[in-house]
């Protein structure tokens, strides 16, 4: 099995010109995901209105597989109800990581990720965006600080309390998205 098989035309195209690759200005949900050993790092931004994923975008940096997977994901999930989007993410993650999971018939462009399934070392590149989407679903922006230090960090902003408890003072000004 050649690594080259991972790098199909669709995947390379999404890496070259990723869809939805920008920081959404006022997201309702946002999360950052990292693969600490390799440095892949992406942030997923979402606007959820009436339980519908109206807008999803991402920023960050990573390998071609990581970036293409994020791009394919945003194209796939945008417009779905949040319940549908979560189910879809679960299904695609199962397909990517479980060799015995039946191949979904409606893969469409996601088929470009097929090759990665044979390279366990690269799976984490392909799954990062999807896991980050799942994390974002549970992270309404009222709990995200604009300083990007997310939930492990406390700030003194009056507008919200971080999930880890009320914060102490923080040097950033106007640091929270309300």
């Amino acid at each position, binding site marked *: 099995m050649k*690594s080259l098989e991972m790098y199909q035309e669709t995947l390379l195209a999404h890496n070259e010109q990723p869809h939805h690759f920008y920081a959404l200005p006022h997201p309702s949900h946002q999360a950052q995901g990292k693969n600490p050993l*390799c440095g*892949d*790092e992406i942030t997923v931004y979402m606007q959820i209105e009436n339980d519908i994923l109206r807008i999803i975008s991402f920023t960050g*940096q990573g*390998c*071609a597989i990581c970036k293409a997977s994020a791009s394919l994901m945003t194209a796939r999930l945008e417009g779905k109800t949040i319940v549908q989007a979560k189910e879809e993410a679960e299904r695609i993650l199962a397909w990517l990581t479980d060799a015995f999971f039946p191949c979904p018939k409606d893969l469409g462009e996601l088929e470009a990720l097929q090759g990665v399934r044979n390279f366990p070392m690269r799976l984490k590149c392909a799954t990062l965006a999807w896991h980050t989407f799942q994390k974002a679903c549970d992270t309404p922006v009222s709990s995200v600080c604009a300083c990007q230090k997310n939930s492990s960090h406390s700030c003194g902003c009056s507008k919200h309390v971080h999930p880890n408890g009320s914060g102490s003072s923080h040097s950033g000004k106007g640091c929270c998205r309300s």
Partner: protein
Amino acid sequence: MGKVFDVQAARNDFPALTQRDAKGQPIVYLDNAATTQKPQKVLDALMDFYTRYNANVHRGYYEWGQRATEAYENTRKRLANLIGAADPQEIIFTRGATEACNALAEIIGQRYFQPDDEIILSELEHHANQIPWQMQQTKRGVRVKGWHVKEDGELDLSQLDSLLTAKTKLLTVTHVSNVIGTVPPLREIIRRAHANGTLVVIDAAQALAHLPINVQTLDCDFLVGSGHKMYGPMGSGFFYGKRALLETLPPYHGGGTMMETVTIDSFTPAAIPARFEAGTPPVADIIGLGAAIDYLQQFSWKSLMAHEDQVIAYAEKTLSQFPRVHVVGHPPQRTAVLSFVIDGIHPHDVASLVSDHHIALRAGYHCCQPLMHRLQYPGGVVRASFGLYNTCEEVDRLAQALEKVFTVFPL
């Protein structure tokens, strides 16, 4: 000593390198900074121990026990000889360089660190030689100060004097950077640190297979090494410490061997080196490390270094010919490691795609996140790291493979 280095003959000493791919090509193994291949002599030593005298050390009064102990202690003598230690008792075996760094941080910390003391950590350090010292911050209230590298990845000696203060208890620096291949001016660093009353720990994990080391000439207080990066087995490592210092340090782990007398509520620690070697050590792996040292020492450093220098210089020249390739750092003396980035291609994609051509590279942070951030490589770098068996022909194969990678990701 003294045998002229014959790379083709040396390659035949490493069974893993004699394998061929479907096209009959051997693997181009360029991940030696992660771990080196093992020569047959090392494998034989492991097999010999397990099949002919597998017994625990320092305990058995039967023949196997004596042989095991003798072979284990012989590695201590060989290591002392390899690094120029005055006394084999100054060598403490560990299960690897990481364990050695953790042990040193803990025992030096216990004995010497006071709240508000400072530790200087160079930015070239591997996480294994950063985190154990950082952990001392919460344990003992010391403060870690980073010794930053310059834009070219070199340590700036002129910065050192302002970093060293009356509170600086310890400085630690690598002998060879596992990302850039840089060799810092250790003698001068150690001289200045000592003039300030500061202890010095050298991380030689990346150096031992590639250049001669003499701890007495260097005058370092402690030095850390890894067996598996010098053609020995995984699970073998060590640290060296000056006898007078080691004797002041408390034990690291408690258990068998490290004690002199034990009552139900107390113990007295054993003398060095046993004090720091609690429990059953990785006996076979340490014996294998002895065989690796024998293997290395059959060559003269001069001939070995001439060969490795030639290959790495050729690699730097060859890769630099590609306009898209940017080599990381330009140290005056580059030892065994050449990292690079390629315009428009992420390091992981490079490493994956060259693996199709049976070439083993590594991509990522290389356990050096602070250095990657300083040098502004957010996605990490690709690293080719060399061993004594690598050749210029292998560099050519790497270059050919890279040309194919360029076609997958045209600019």
